[in-house]
């Protein structure tokens, strides 16, 4: 199957005195109908990658590599009249309230997208609106309401409806549940999963929350300091993380234990995104560090099974199979 989105050797750095790369040598494929999760701590470059896909990078960024969407190489910047990545992608953001126009009813806002991007007759638009609202689980009368009359979860559903109205080949969701509370978060994630399966939607889900990613995605990439450190099917990441950073992230997710723990397991220190290291960026926090880790950069290798890639000289051993 040909990938719908293919990112090749992408590096992006922001302008400024201490110019440093936000995204470094990223390679990634998204297949049609696949949900890919991008995980990392704040500041690791997740959002920069999403903005690059959308052609929304701030001006003056230095970028290398290429992005190919549906077999077409896309421009990093949107120019009037030029085809760009934005023709193929829809995006929803962290805070739904800031994405919606407060003085226009949400029905009208969705209608405008339908009019602009679908080839429906004018008479068919109300039906399409009703269909979209139903798809995202909103009652019909919501079309008449204004954004402030909806809860955060409902607003996020409206944005999802708008993204679906776009009929884009890929949906990018950048921290779509971070601003929501626990119960609503579950609902939105379930909805994303359901839409992705039913509508055969290709999805790039960006989050710092590994458990959110686990719920929705088939493929997971873990990003540290702008580099992908581990990339594998969801199941493998959760059952046998090879990179110490992936394992550390997993261990730090709060879990209910049979007995109250005395201390939570966690990674020491904090990610230092400001300085450029010659060796592995994670070396200073790594429990499996060796002397050579700080001198040389580990490449993103494939394991024998070929579907779990990790960038580490001293990976965690595979769990031994008990007989």
């Amino acid at each position, binding site marked *: 199957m040909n990938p719908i989105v293919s990112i090749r050797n992408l590096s992006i750095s922001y302008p400024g005195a201490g110019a440093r790369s936000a995204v470094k040598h990223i390679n990634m494929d998204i297949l049609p109908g696949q949900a890919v999760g991008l995980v990392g701590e704040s500041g690791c470059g997740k959002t920069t990658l999403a903005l690059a896909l959308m052609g929304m990078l701030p001006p003056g960024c230095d970028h290398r590599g290429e992005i190919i969407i549906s077999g077409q190489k896309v421009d990093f910047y949107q120019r009037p009249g030029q085809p760009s990545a934005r023709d193929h992608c829809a995006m929803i953001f962290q805070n739904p309230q800031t994405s919606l126009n407060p003085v226009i009813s949400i029905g009208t806002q969705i209608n405008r997208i339908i009019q602009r991007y679908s080839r429906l007759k004018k008479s068919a638009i109300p039906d399409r609106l009703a269909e979209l609202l139903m798809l995202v689980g909103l009652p019909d009368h919501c079309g008449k309401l204004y954004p402030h009359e909806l809860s955060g979860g409902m607003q996020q559903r409206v944005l999802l409806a708008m993204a679906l109205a776009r009929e884009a080949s890929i949906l990018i969701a950048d921290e779509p549940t971070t601003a929501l509370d626990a119960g609503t978060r579950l609902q939105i994630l379930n909805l994303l999963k359901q839409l992705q399966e039913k509508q055969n939607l290709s999805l790039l889900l960006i989050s710092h929350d590994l458990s959110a990613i686990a719920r929705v995605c088939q493929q997971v990439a873990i990003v540290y300091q702008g580099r992908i450190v581990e990339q594998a099917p969801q199941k493998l990441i959760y059952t046998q993380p090879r990179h110490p950073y992936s394992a550390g992230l997993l261990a730090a997710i709060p879990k209910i234990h049979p007995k109250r723990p005395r201390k*939570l397991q966690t990674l020491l220190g904090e990610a230092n995104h400001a300085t450029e290291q010659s060796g592995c960026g994670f070396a200073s926090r790594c429990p499996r560090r060796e002397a050579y880790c700080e001198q040389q950069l580990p490449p993103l290798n494939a394991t024998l099974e070929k579907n779990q890639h990790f960038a580490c000289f001293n990976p965690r051993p595979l769990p031994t199979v008990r007989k």
Partner: protein
Amino acid sequence: MKPADTSTGVHANGLMKLWPASNKQAPRVGLNNLDLIIPAGKTYGLVGESGSGKSTLALALLRLIKLDAGEIWINGQAIQTLSQAELRAQRQHMQLIFQNPLAALDPRQRIDNAILEPLALHKIGTAIQRRQQLRNLFELVGLSQSLASRYPHQLSGGQQQRVMIARALACRPSFLIADEPVSALDAPIQAQILNLLRELQAELGFTMLFISHDLAVIQFIADIVGVMYQGELLEQANNEALFNNPCHPYTESLLAAAGAGMQTARLNSHDQAPRKTPLTGSCCYSAGCLRGMAVCSQQTPTLRYINKSPPHWVKCLHYEN
């Protein structure tokens, strides 16, 4: 659950708060006849979905909102009856940590000044003593001294939250409220901050009310756990008792949802929950309860002991008679 001795710890009795609603609708319930005891030096973990009144309770305990009814004692001080001047003096003993440190810190104030501000306001110590105290506080919360002259936006989220903790602890409060202090942080940083808070409490011995929607966080940090729903406490027990033997149907469903982890789980959500006023003579959870009986919509349960040791309270008609 009448407070016997109110001279230590935190005691609240019959707290009531109705939020006025617009458009002639019935007022929404913030707190509904809520009783609470936090023994001195213990951590009380309050869990519940958003809108259940957790933050309302926090604000009420510090008298940051006006209650409709109820009495509060913190270390023997009846908070509701203090004059403004007495209240201001009392504030140094009760401090609050918020969810979003960047919103709580003044963007134009250096963090050393932010931490010292409460000491200056309460006129504690001389300037030299305060500087010394600042160094101690930095060490206490694990911040490097070299960050002292930075501004909030120059710090990471974890460092900002450490600043907030240092600021809250500057006056050596006897009562600390932490309102979702880790939910805005990445998982590794979240675990670091939780470890820090537990170490600090062991070292300094303050009483803490810790609010979270995350049961796993509550299990780690809390000695006593209270489960809140629509402004009422539905269950309250020691950490071990609550997690090993949840009695209220709502607690059961919360634990099931959290334990299911990666799988989808049914959870009563705020999105669809009817925001009714539960003053109608029924159990406030009767609409969503999986173990509901006919009587649940006709009678209001009371929070009562079902077990004396370890103490365990439940507010459910299944446990009455």
